[in-house]
Every structure is written in structure tokens, then in C-alpha cells.
């Protein structure tokens, strides 16, 4: 059996998983995939978080991708970080940089086994702040400067690719060089509040091609969280795992302990259980019916007959789900154009699921939003060309399929 087939049948433990520690956030990014803002009163306590870390250590989960919300606004964030590292559970955390002052940067530089990802969605303040909010570009750059000054080695600059920043790829690479950082780019997904802005923000078909070619030419030192595997259908397979790992090698623990198949699928349909249940996280990972379903051989549906199916495997489950497309059909950003056709074929009666989990500080469509938002295009009209968004913390980011005998 090929390794990729083993992955499809699921592993004993996730290779690594995403853990959103809080729904609280100081920002209100228009494309937030977890619709974060307000803290959830049911958030896992410090002790409950430590119990989860104990379990991850027992399951030999080598590292977790920690996010939120803004994880560093949890008062116990640094305590939990130390606890995880002390138990050989490495931490890669994503932050907007709000708490990374000189003192914290110095402390991080002195801690082994921690990676920091600073989120930045525009190389310029103009492009970034339109999505992430006023001042967020300056905050991110200040954090990067503090990390560089403290001697923290190679933080990541994590960029969600949008229609407005694909043209800035070289500028992002220069920015990473300037701060001794590594660039990480991921796909915009129609998850959380991302559903509200996906139509306007996802890269155009031409930009997808640009992005693919840029990755082929410059991808060696650039991390992608394996989130662009749907672009492999252009021809050359991109490095990493070209497979949806949801529930098989990847999952998400949310701030209240709910376990979802992947970080982009916060919806009851993809909720596998809760770490507070008697079996804990291991019980959910090993015994949930949802995960058992995901690990069964999947039908590629209409995609099976496509010559690119082996490369893209039908693309991203969450991107299909939140655009109202069938899960066994093409990705909405299918590079062969089948996704566009499928989007156009939706009717007014096609249900487009919305997440039942929303911690936004303003109700959808109200309050100040630094973008011109329009209602979702009625599906009866032809949908425009749609590209995509980022597989944030794909647990396989950086994985090397080396050391394998075949």
C-alpha cells in the first residue's frame, strides 16, 4: 500500500493538529475562518488544556498548531506554551503580534521547540489593513522586529492569498528576508466570515495560475501548509501532501473542546465529538463515526474521470461544503474550470451551509467592516471565476516524505 493510501485510512494519532485556544480576538479580520471575536464562556480551563496536552503527549502528537482567535490574549497562554514544550509537544502558534513585545520576544528566543507565525495579509499596510483592520500591519511588523532583535530564529510570516496580494508575492519574500523570517502562504477558504468575502477576495483564475507558477519557481523555501494541492492539476505536483487530510491525519480542537475534521470545517456536520467526553481527545480521534466515515474509501464522483484527479483528488472538502457544492464533485477553484461550472449550476434552492458557530463581535453584515461587502451572489446567476484561500495550519506543513523505503 502506498503511503498516501495509509493516510487515507487514518493514522493512530494525528500527525499534528490545530488547536484554537480561544475565540477571543483583538482584531476582526473580514475573512476569519473561525468567526472569532468574543471569548466563549465555555472555553477550556487551564487545567482542561493541560489534560489535553498530557493526552497529546501520550499519543505522540509531535506538535500542535495553536491559533484562535488570538491565542496570546488568553492570560494562561504562556503557561500552556511552556507546559506543552516541557511535555515534548511542540508549539507552532499563529498570532497577529499584539502581545509580542520585546520582553516576550526575548523569552520566546530562549524557548526551544516553539515556532511563531505572524499573520500578515498584505505586504503594504493598505492591502493588509483592508482585510485585518487598521494598524494591524504596523503591529505585525513591530512583532517581527522584536523577534529579530531578540535573535528568535526564523519566525514565519503567514499570508492568506487574496485577489489583492497575489501580486505582492515577491514583496512578501523580500519582507521575510528583511526580518530573517520564512514566508508561508495559504489558501483563502470560504469558512467562517470568509464565506462573506470569498466571492470578492479569492484570487482570479489568472492569479491562481500566477500563484502556481510562482510556487513552482520559488516554492523551495516557502511553506504552504500543503493548502494549494488543488493547483497540482496544472501539471507539476507541488511539494508536500497532495491530499485532504481531514479526520485522517489532521483535525481541529476548538476553544470549547469540540473536535472538528479540519480547521476549515467548523460546522456541526464535521463535529466529531468533544475532548470533555469520557474518552477524551483520543476517544474522539479513534472512535468517532464521522472520522470513521472520512477514513473509508471516498468516491471522487464526477471528478473520477478527470485526468487530473490523481493530482488534486477533488480538492478541499471545506471549500466545497461552504460554497454549496457536493463533496464528491470539483473544488470551487478547480483549475480546469469545473468548479466554476458547478457554482454556476447552483440554483436559488441550493442550500449553502453556514457555520452554527459565530463569535463575531458585530453581527454579520453590521458594524464597521473595512471592505465593501456585497451579499452573496444569488446562485441562479452565473458565478464569477473563483480562486481561493489558505489551509492555515495544515499539520503536514513542512513534512518531508524522506526516509522512506519503497
Amino acid at each position: 500500500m502506498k503511503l498516501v493510501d495509509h493516510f487515507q485510512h487514518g493514522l493512530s494519532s494525528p500527525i499534528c493538529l490545530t488547536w484554537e485556544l480561544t475565540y477571543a480576538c483583538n482584531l476582526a479580520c473580514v475573512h476569519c475562518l473561525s468567526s472569532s471575536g468574543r471569548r466563549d464562556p465555555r472555553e477550556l480551563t487551564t487545567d482542561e488544556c493541560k489534560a489535553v496536552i498530557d493526552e497529546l503527549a501520550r499519543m505522540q502528537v509531535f506538535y500542535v498548531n495553536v491559533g484562535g482567535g488570538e491565542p496570546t490574549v488568553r492570560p494562561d497562554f504562556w503557561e500552556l506554551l511552556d507546559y506543552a514544550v516541557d511535555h515534548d509537544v511542540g508549539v507552532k502558534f499563529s498570532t497577529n503580534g499584539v502581545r509580542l513585545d520585546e520582553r516576550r520576544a526575548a523569552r520566546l528566543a530562549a524557548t526551544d521547540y516553539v515556532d511563531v507565525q505572524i499573520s500578515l495579509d498584505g505586504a503594504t499596510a493598505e492591502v493588509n489593513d483592508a482585510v485585518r483592520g487598521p494598524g494591524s500591519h504596523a503591529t505585525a511588523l513591530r512583532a517581527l522586529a522584536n523577534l529579530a532583535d531578540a535573535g528568535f530564529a526564523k519566525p514565519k510570516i503567514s499570508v492568506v492569498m487574496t485577489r489583492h496580494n497575489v501580486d505582492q508575492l515577491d514583496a512578501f519574500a523580500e519582507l521575510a528576508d528583511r526580518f530573517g523570517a520564512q514566508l508561508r502562504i495559504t489558501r483563502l477558504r470560504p469558512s467562517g466570515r470568509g464565506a462573506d468575502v470569498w466571492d470578492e477576495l479569492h484570487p482570479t483564475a489568472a492569479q491562481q495560475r500566477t500563484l502556481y507558477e510562482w510556487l513552482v519557481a520559488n516554492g523551495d523555501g516557502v511553506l504552504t501548509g500543503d493548502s494549494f494541492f488543488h493547483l497540482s492539476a496544472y501539471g507539476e505536483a507541488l511539494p508536500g501532501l497532495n491530499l485532504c487530510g481531514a479526520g485522517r491525519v489532521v483535525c481541529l480542537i476548538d476553544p470549547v473542546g469540540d473536535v472538528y475534521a479540519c480547521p476549515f470545517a467548523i460546522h456541526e456536520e464535521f463535529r466529531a465529538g468533544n475532548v470533555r467526553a469520557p474518552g477524551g481527545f483520543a476517544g474522539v480521534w479513534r472512535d468517532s463515526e464521522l472520522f470513521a466515515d472520512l477514513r473509508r474509501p471516498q468516491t471522487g464522483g464526477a471528478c473520477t474521470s478527470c485526468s487530473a484527479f490523481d493530482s488534486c483528488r477533488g480538492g478541499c472538502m471545506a471549500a466545497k461544503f461552504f460554497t454549496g457544492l457536493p463533496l464528491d464533485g470539483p473544488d470551487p477553484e478547480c483549475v480546469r474550470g469545473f468548479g466554476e461550472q458547478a457554482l454556476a449550476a447552483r440554483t436559488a434552492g441550493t442550500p449553502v451551509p453556514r457555520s452554527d458557530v459565530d463569535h463575531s463581535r458585530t453581527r454579520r453584515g453590521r458594524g464597521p467592516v473595512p471592505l465593501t461587502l456585497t451579499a452573496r451572489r444569488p446562485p441562479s446567476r452565473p458565478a464569477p471565476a473563483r480562486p481561493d484561500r489558505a489551509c492555515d495550519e495544515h499539520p503536514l506543513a513542512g513534512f518531508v516524505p524522506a526516509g522512506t523505503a519503497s
Partner: protein
Amino acid sequence: MRPEPFGALLYHFGTRRLSFLKTPQLVAVVTGLADHPDVHAALFAADVPAAQHPAYLRALAGLRGNGTIEERA
């Protein structure tokens, strides 16, 4: 090293490189390295057929290349 149905996942906490040991025999070879004078002895001890030695040596070279295993000082 984490056992998996296909073999094992191997993670190096220093380099943060994750490697996949795709067969149980490769797991036996890698875990046996410390107990044998050289890689060839480890291959024989794990009963790897001679015809497969080149493939296993390539796999070990890959692990050495990414810093997961090192030549004994």
C-alpha cells in the same frame, strides 16, 4: 518514533523534520542502528533481503541528509 500501521513516523525535535518509515523493517533497521557497528550490520540483523539493501541505504541516506540520524562520532 511513533508506531503506525505502515511502519512509523519519526520526528526530530531539533531539526523539526518529520520522516515516514514506510515499512516495519525500516523501523527495525533504524532502531537497530545504535546496537550495530554499521548500517550493513543493522540491515542484516533486520533480515532485509540483499536485493533491497540499496533502497534501504537510500532511505538511510535521506535520514542522514536531513539530520535525523548522524554518523557515530
